[in-house]
């Protein structure tokens, strides 16, 4: 899904700014965010802690009011409307289940506030608990459930209201790895089933890549890049995004030649880096990234027009399905290479070996060019 396909945005943020004052000092947590989130989209706000993603979400929910800017839900300006009169629901990081109420009472809370008839409440609560896989646990107290089950109750309690959008604040952070992976798949399934817009806040790039239709990578109160998981992973728009999403190798050098829309960085002898770049010129400094799994490593010289750099293996880390190599290039850069252990042949190289690294020019990206 690309930006111009979003016709009527479920959520639209216009130049959103949030300042906090603490001890007489004003800090800008969100520094002007513009976003259009489409109907039925699984949208992630991804970034390190303190990047403003949670504050942005709290402004959508209505817990924090923007210092300036507007929040629109389905074309309606809801800036200044209190959270209990906004048609969005939130799943809290701590789940925030009411411990003195049963599972059914927790889930029914929103419907009761709206004055929905009693037997309809019972029916809808039963339905949603079935969808999240908690049928038959209506009478339990939250304290008697496991972390994963509490997570599902929190999800059901929000979804049962049929909100315009569901906001999820790091909902999987408290679960262990195995459960987190199960819940990632579950969340995606539930979202498909109910068709509600999900806005997912996370600092876990793997989680965002797995589940999202689109991701907004946030840093220091701003959106650094907006795009599909593939776009963000393959074409990081900035050094920050390249470093934050997955493992990325950062290389740099002086452009020595331009050839068919690509810049060539000659490194002397038969070593060179070729990278697609349209707006650069000979003599300028260029930074580029290349993902570890795109690099081919071998002891004999590679052929053709590929990027090719010599290096020395400094570390070999065996990981079962793959092996990671740390290589110091002839230019002094540290590069990580992932190789699949497809056959049970011996390792390509051992520590101290001289190797050739090579990759297709289209697998590397010049930053800011």
């Amino acid at each position, binding site marked *: 899904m690309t930006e111009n396909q979003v016709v009527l945005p479920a959520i639209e943020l216009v130049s959103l700014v949030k300042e906090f004052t603490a001890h007489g000092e004003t800090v800008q947590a969100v520094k002007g965010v513009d976003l259009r989130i489409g109907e039925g989209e699984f949208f992630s706000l991804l970034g390190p802690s303190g990047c403003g993603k949670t504050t942005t979400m709290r402004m959508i929910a209505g*817990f924090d009011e923007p210092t300036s800017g507007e929040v629109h839900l389905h074309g309606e300006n809801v800036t200044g409307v209190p959270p209990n009169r906004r048609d969005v629901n939130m799943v809290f990081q701590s789940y925030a289940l009411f411990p003195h109420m049963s599972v059914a009472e927790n889930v029914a809370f929103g419907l009761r506030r709206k004055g929905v008839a009693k037997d309809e409440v019972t029916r809808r609560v039963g339905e949603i608990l079935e969808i999240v896989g908690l049928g038959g646990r209506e009478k339990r*107290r939250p304290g008697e459930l496991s972390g994963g089950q509490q997570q599902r109750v929190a999800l059901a309690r929000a979804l049962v209201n049929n909100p315009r959008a569901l906001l999820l604040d790091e909902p999987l952070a408290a679960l262990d790895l195995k459960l987190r992976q199960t819940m990632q798949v579950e969340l995606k399934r539930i979202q498909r089933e109910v068709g509600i817009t999900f806005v997912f806040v996370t600092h876990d790039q793997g989680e965002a890549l797995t589940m999202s239709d689109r991701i907004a990578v946030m840093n220091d109160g701003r959106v650094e890049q907006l795009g599909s998981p593939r776009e963000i992973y393959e074409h990081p728009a900035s050094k920050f995004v390249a470093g934050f999403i997955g493992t990325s190798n950062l290389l740099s050098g002086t452009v020595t030649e331009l050839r068919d829309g690509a810049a060539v960085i000659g490194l002397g002898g038969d070593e060179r880096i070729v990278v697609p770049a349209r707006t650069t010129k000979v003599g300028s400094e260029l930074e580029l990234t290349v993902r570890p799994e795109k690099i081919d490593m071998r002891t004999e010289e590679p052929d053709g027009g590929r990027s090719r750099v010599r290096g020395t293996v400094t570390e070999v880390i065996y990981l079962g399905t793959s092996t990671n190599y740390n290589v110091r290039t002839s230019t002094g850069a540290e590069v990580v290479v992932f190789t699949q252990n497809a056959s049970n042949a011996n390792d390509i190289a051992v520590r101290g070996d001289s190797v050739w690294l090579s990759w297709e020019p289209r697998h590397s990206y010049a930053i800011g060019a």
Partner: protein
Amino acid sequence: MKLLKGRLLHAYTLLLVAWLVLPIAVMIAFGFNDTSSKQNFVWEGFTFEWYARLFEKEDLTRALVNSLLIALLSTVVTTVIGTMVGLALGRFRFRGQGTSNFVLFAAISTPELVMGSSLLAMFVQLNTPRGFVTILLAHVMFSIAFVAVTVRARVVGLDPSLEEAAADLGASGWTTFRLVTLPMIMPGVMAGAMLAFALSVDDFVITNFTSGSTVTFPLWVWSSTRTGTPPQVNVMGTLIFAVGVLVALYNLWSARRRRTT
């Protein structure tokens, strides 16, 4: 060595329990003392007579009723005001918060005798006739801090996202308080209320300064010591104690029930 340590701990525990229980046991026992003298000091035999003749001394009965009435009223008023103070202090940051906390601490730590005499001076200055109302005012005043502190502790431990979740699900401020906040802080409120009742029902010092001609149970007992305290006093003490034990047992039971269902 380990065995010896275990035995020592055992003996120490028993000694401590005895220390706590013995005075209460004496109070209960002398309510059953078949005494004929004015002073109820020597054990003379077992009888239920004093239970049968519990309300025989009219002025003692009136004093007990006064005490219970004052304790009940002051507990209700104190619990409402103290809970609001505790909520404000535990939930929000505001100008004058430090001062408010200090005033609470001062109310708890000021010597009772000094506070009592100062209250008397104040009431005299303001030309207020001393009696039931001034006792009530004084009791509310010195117990608010205790309720506020217990409730504040509970509020501080409360996850603020619980109230946000209620608002998110469409609850207004009042509904959120009624359905989420109040049930969550209820144990603190109940503990504060019991503390307020216990402080009021047996307060002597401050009551003595602010009572005028009104007599409460502790004042009656004190004045009777010169002429001889009748066994009915022990019986009344026993009954108040029994009610306290029942309330404590109920709390224990309901807390356990909350945990298991």
